């Protein structure tokens, strides 16, 4: 199908591939500054304790130690939405693994030795580890001073003297009445454990302080401007005094959005008056740095006998851990998405973000949606069975369609995409309705499952993005942006868009890799599957600006009206008369007439995009417009289970996503295949384990297993549909998170098909599966 596009929609290879395959790509892990110090951190062994005393003299006296810091000297509160976090624990520790003391020394070995010489004495307190228990009236308070914390007012609503950091409500229609009068009802509860992003590059930051309150930071981050802004707010520094560089980043998945190690690196560098590098060990990445929140979901659904959902209520209790900065936004996003992609007239949701004395949660690919879809898509299947309706048909009958309203009152249009087509495509690709071929080996059973998905970018109503394109001496184009390409390939997509819009051969279009807040234009954060959409639109506008400038100068040079000029292959010429024109190289720094007079000047275009039409959600009803665009999709899966060991194998997994427009099929395919396997990790193997004292039990790859090349499903299929998104660049919408978020639900649904057992807790590991099989056999 020819759409006249030369680069957009083509499988262009990544330009950064060369640096990455040759070892030339330098990540924060690989950088150093002259005179740089190295950091070691001492963490809390207790989930909840009062810090009685910290003896640091022996550590300070060790030769090579330059700074030893404790929380006492660092009275800063950090947070984007909820300022509840300190740099180092002050007075109390709130989770096992929390950083208590930091040492900067000439070498890492000296820093670690110094930490061993620090003596901390604690008075252990009773921890609260279960979010349900944390809601009880006499539960220990993780943040007794919650009422004093700054937070984003009007958006988040912490409840002082409780463990509730935020409570988001959706009230559409009258759930109680509709449920009471429903023909069929269902009630079920589901749980997700916390999991970790496991970027292959752990968090790393270098901070260097300059005279007069200036600081320069290199950091493995998804959000240089957010780092700058939060540092400015926390430390009272003007934004211009803070310069943030983001080099190559070895994976983020949301865990490197917001602030990470930057404040710690800064205060150490400031105290030492030397550059300081902080690098998390893999154990610290698991045990000290944030995770994905755990969730307990209680769901009630009411429906008519002929399969129309009339009522849905969800009570989400998020296990935020000790700090809830990102947690509150996840709780909010989960609420407004919290009924799945369905048209439901009566929907009440209560999403509470609850503090516990465990590792704290942050953004993780999907931002609450994998967690809620586990419950919702399992409950949908359970209701379908109760109604004796095929699960695909049941979904078809209830998915959002043109004219429906969402649970926040947003009207669904054709430009939203096509959820039904996604479910149909996934169902067809898995031969839905046909039983699986019999397994070749005894004691094995097979099953199929399907699950729908949806997500919109969860971002503030003022989220914005800018792009600058400057033309070089030779007419090539450099695109400057502050999005971060941490693997998803956005820079390549933007390069394609720039080349397309500038009418430039793609070899002459580049996206400047390193991002530097001194000269890269603003972007909010590279999260939420928003950057191709927003950055793409910004680049389109910037390119149009360049083209306007090119034509303006060319029209004078050629003495024609700009309307008569066209651009193609890096040349501006009179429409129909290609020889009457000028190369971009003749115009990019200005144009000189034969007599020497020069006009124009260096061509620099700029473009921007701000979220349009978004509103805050009503605090009581949740009504409003939170979503710039929704992306819909579905997973379908066929599994095989060894009923004697519980071992589960994925025979085939299909992912259908409505991308609006596939900007680069090679990259899109990579996102889906990678996201699906990461989703399988959450589905089958991953989860934090804690002992009864709240101590983390599996902070390493020995006992926190992520999928390897041996764990790839036998067959995967990726289907990208293209129902254009209103306002998207070329009709595209974001797809980066979506490949992950209903994988566990589809597998859970397939397990029912295979075994007749309803699984409600993740992960669906071999042990859980076998023990449930045995239990159901005993009961039978």
């Amino acid at each position, binding site marked *: 199908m020819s759409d006249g596009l030369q680069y957009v929609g083509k499988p262009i290879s990544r330009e950064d591939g060369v640096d990455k*395959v040759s*070892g*030339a790509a330098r*990540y924060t892990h690989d950088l150093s500054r002259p005179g740089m110090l190295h950091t070691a951190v001492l963490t809390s062994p207790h989930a909840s304790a009062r810090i009685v005393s910290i003896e640091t003299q022996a550590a300070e006296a060790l030769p090579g130690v330059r700074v030893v810091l404790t929380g006492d000297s660092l009275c800063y509160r950090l947070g984007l939405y909820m300022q509840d976090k300190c740099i180092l624990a002050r007075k109390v520790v709130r989770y096992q693994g929390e950083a208590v003391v930091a040492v900067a020394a000439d070498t890492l070995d000296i820093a670690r030795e110094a930490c061993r010489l620090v003596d901390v004495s604690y008075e252990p307190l009773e921890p609260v580890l279960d979010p349900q228990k944390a809601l009880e009236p006499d539960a220990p308070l993780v943040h007794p001073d919650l009422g004093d914390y700054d937070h984003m007012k009007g958006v988040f609503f912490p409840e002082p003297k409780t463990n509730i950091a935020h409570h988001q409500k959706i009230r559409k229609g009258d759930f109680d009445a509709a449920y009471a009068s429903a023909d069929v009802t269902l009630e079920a509860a589901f749980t997700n454990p916390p999991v970790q992003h*496991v970027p*292959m590059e752990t968090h790393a930051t270098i901070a260097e302080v300059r005279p007069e309150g200036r600081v320069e930071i290199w950091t493995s981050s998804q959000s240089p401007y957010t780092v700058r802004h939060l540092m400015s707010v926390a430390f009272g520094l003007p934004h211009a005094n803070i310069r943030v560089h983001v080099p190559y980043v*070895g994976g983020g998945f949301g865990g490197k959005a917001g602030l990470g190690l930057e404040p710690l690196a800064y205060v150490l560098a400031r105290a030492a008056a030397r550059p300081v590098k902080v690098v998390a060990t893999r154990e610290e990445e698991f045990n000290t740095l944030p995770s994905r929140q755990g969730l307990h979901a209680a769901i009630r659904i009411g429906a008519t006998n002929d399969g129309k959902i009339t009522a849905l209520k969800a009570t989400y209790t998020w296990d935020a851990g000790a700090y809830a900065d990102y947690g509150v936004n996840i709780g909010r996003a989960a609420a407004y998405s919290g009924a799945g992609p369905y048209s439901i007239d009566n929907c009440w949701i209560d999403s509470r973000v609850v503090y516990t004395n465990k590792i704290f949660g942050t953004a993780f690919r999907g931002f609450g949606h994998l967690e809620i879809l586990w419950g919702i898509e399992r409950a949908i299947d359970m209701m379908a069975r109760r109604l004796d309706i095929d699960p695909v048909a049941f979904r078809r009958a209830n998915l959002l369609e043109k004219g429906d309203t969402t649970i926040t009152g947003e009207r669904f249009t054709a430009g939203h995409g096509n959820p039904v087509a996604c479910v149909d495509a996934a169902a067809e690709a898995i031969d839905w309705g046909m039983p699986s071929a019999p397994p070749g080996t005894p004691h094995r059973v097979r099953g199929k499952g399907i699950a729908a998905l949806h997500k919109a970018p969860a971002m503030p109503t003022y989220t914005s993005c800018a792009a600058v394109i400057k033309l070089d001496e030779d007419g090539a184009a450099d695109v400057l942006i502050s999005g971060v390409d941490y*693997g998803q390939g956005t820079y390549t997509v933007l390069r394609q868009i720039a080349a397309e819009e500038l009418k430039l051969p793609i070899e002459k279009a580049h996206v400047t890799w390193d991002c530097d807040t001194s000269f890269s234009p603003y972007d909010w954060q590279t999260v939420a599957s928003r950057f191709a959409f927003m950055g793409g639109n910004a680049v389109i506008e910037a390119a149009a600006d360049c083209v306007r400038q090119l034509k303006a100068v060319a029209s004078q040079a050629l003495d024609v009206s700009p309307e008569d000029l066209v651009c193609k292959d890096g040349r501006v010429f009179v429409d129909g008369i290609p020889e009457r024109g000028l190369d971009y190289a003749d115009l990019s720094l200005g144009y000189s007439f034969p007599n020497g007079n020069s006009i124009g000047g260096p061509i620099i275009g700029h473009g921007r995009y701000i979220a349009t039409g978004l509103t805050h959600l009503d605090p009581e009803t949740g009504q409003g417009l939170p979503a710039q665009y929704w992306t819909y999709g579905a997973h379908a899966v066929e599994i095989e289970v060894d009923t004697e060991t519980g071992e589960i194998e994925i025979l085939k997994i299909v992912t259908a996503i409505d991308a609006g427009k596939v900007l680069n099929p090679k990259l899109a*395919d990579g996102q889906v295949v*990678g996201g699906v396997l990461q989703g399988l990790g959450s589905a089958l193997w991953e989860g934090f384990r804690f002992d009864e004292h709240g101590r983390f039990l599996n902070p390493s790859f020995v006992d926190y297993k992520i999928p390897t090349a041996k764990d790839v499903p036998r067959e995967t299929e990726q289907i990208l549909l293209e129902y254009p998104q209103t306002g998207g660049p070329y009709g595209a919408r974001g797809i980066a998170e979506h490949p992950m978020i209903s994988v566990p639900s589809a597998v859970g649904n397939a397990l029912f098909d295979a075994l007749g057992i309803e699984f409600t807790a993740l992960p669906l590991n071999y042990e859980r599966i076998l023990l449930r099989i045995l239990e159901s056999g005993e009961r039978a």
Partner: protein
Amino acid sequence: MTHEIAMTINGQREQVQVPAGMTLLELLRERLHLTGTKEGCGIGECGACTVLLDGAPVTSCLILAVECDGRDVRTVEGEIENGRLSELQRAFIDAGAIQCGFCTPGMIMSARALLERNPDPSDEEMVEAIAGNLCRCTGYQAILQAVRLAAERARARDATGGGHLASDRNASPTLDRKGRER
């Protein structure tokens, strides 16, 4: 106590004084500034630090520099030939086998070692060769395609008599996943 050791790294002779406790990974990254090899876990579980020691892929975080005296070490920086990307590196790019890139150097070294010991590996052998390299981004399929592509291109090139992919090192017998000779 420090030890004086000499080794070949990417074809260059290096002579250094190292403490006994220094790992090969530390030597490469911190002393020799060859930062292509990465640290992902420090306990030999993730493969990001994979290098070739006398042609065999090993996790350099669990090898002491002193153990490498007199040995030959190859890292991803040595994969480039005359300033040009090797066929294997080119195959990674063409197959879309790179996302964040942090696992890529280790993957390339594991793949390089595989193709040297077996220029025509089965799918199972390819999986076994990279199963010790964790990747969180790609889902591995494109990486396996890259290895396949590199092997096919090298065989095609050898068939037409041009150049070679696998260096002429001590070839071990070609084996399947269970170690059976093929």
